[in-house]
């Protein structure tokens, strides 16, 4: 069910990410203002955009789960948020490195873009413990979906609020003028964004396929154990959905 298209997606991820990094270091010119340090931009910004889109996607799958009651949607929601959190960690770390090199500080608490991303990240950091705290799978899926939808709606609102706030140091990339990027920089950025987005989708599919295989194996084991009239080991408590 989830493994369809995994091979071409994996190849596309490798080609796009390697191509993007090649463009970053061999094609895109050094920034006139920041110089070589600006190369972090091609990694940091796509990671942030894809992480935020992953959080919103988790909310969309949450809506679909509440509408259909299909456990596959709950699993998709869980995996999207889980991976978006990992991409969020990468965003925060690469952003901090860039901040230290550019501004001389690892973090600026009075910068709305930084703090708002941290708030969104910390909000989603509660998602996994929330799931783990609920034992009943039905209730777990329902509560997690409601959380994913509410938090997912918060992401674009938060984005808009940050756009309206006055930025002190953090530059605006997605502006009407396209961040005033020249063509070669813009092309590199678009390829990098596509690479990170396809990588995200590929990793989602890997995890979904792996979880589905585990579930099928567990179900088969249970069936065989029942057939043999032997005691089978119950599934251990987990934040991840345990059955489809």
């Amino acid at each position: 069910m989830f493994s369809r298209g995994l091979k071409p997606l994996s190849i596309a991820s490798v080609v796009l990410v390697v191509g993007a990094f090649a463009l970053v270091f061999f094609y895109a010119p050094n920034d006139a203002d920041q110089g070589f340090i600006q190369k972090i931009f091609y990694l940091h910004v796509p990671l942030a955009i894809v992480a935020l889109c992953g959080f919103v996607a988790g909310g969309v799958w949450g809506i679909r789960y509440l509408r259909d009651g299909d456990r596959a949607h709950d699993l998709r929601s869980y995996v999207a948020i889980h991976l978006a959190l990992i991409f969020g960690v990468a965003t925060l770390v690469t952003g901090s490195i860039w901040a230290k090199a550019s501004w001389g500080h690892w973090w600026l608490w009075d910068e709305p873009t930084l703090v708002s991303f941290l708030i969104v990240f910390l909000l989603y950091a509660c998602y996994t413990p929330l799931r783990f705290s609920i034992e009943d799978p039905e209730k777990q899926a329902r509560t997690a979906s409601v959380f994913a939808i509410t938090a997912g709606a918060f992401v674009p609102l938060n984005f808009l609020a940050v756009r309206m706030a006055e930025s002190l140091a953090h530059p605006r990339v997605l502006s009407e003028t396209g961040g005033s990027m020249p063509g070669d920089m813009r092309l590199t950025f678009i390829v990098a964004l596509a690479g990170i987005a396809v990588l995200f989708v590929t990793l989602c599919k890997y995890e979904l396929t792996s979880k589905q295989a585990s579930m099928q194996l567990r179900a088969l084991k249970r069936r065989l154990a029942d057939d043999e009239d032997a005691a089978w080991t119950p599934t251990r408590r987990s934040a991840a959905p345990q059955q489809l």
Partner: protein
Amino acid sequence: MIAALLAATPALPLDDAGPYVAAAYLVFLALILIYVAIMASKLVRIARELGELTEIVDRRDRDELEAGAEEAVPR
């Protein structure tokens, strides 16, 4: 080819910016590698469980074979 690539490369600065850029890209690479390692450990678990299931099925086949052989022996 590498020489041609290096010739086309904007001069890689070995000043203060280089280590920071390298660190940012290495963090990304490390996270991806950690993720792949976790996925690999899950794959190992799936393979082990598959082995257990194969063992159960083999044992069951053996038992059925033995039971069939005992029934076939004339008394």
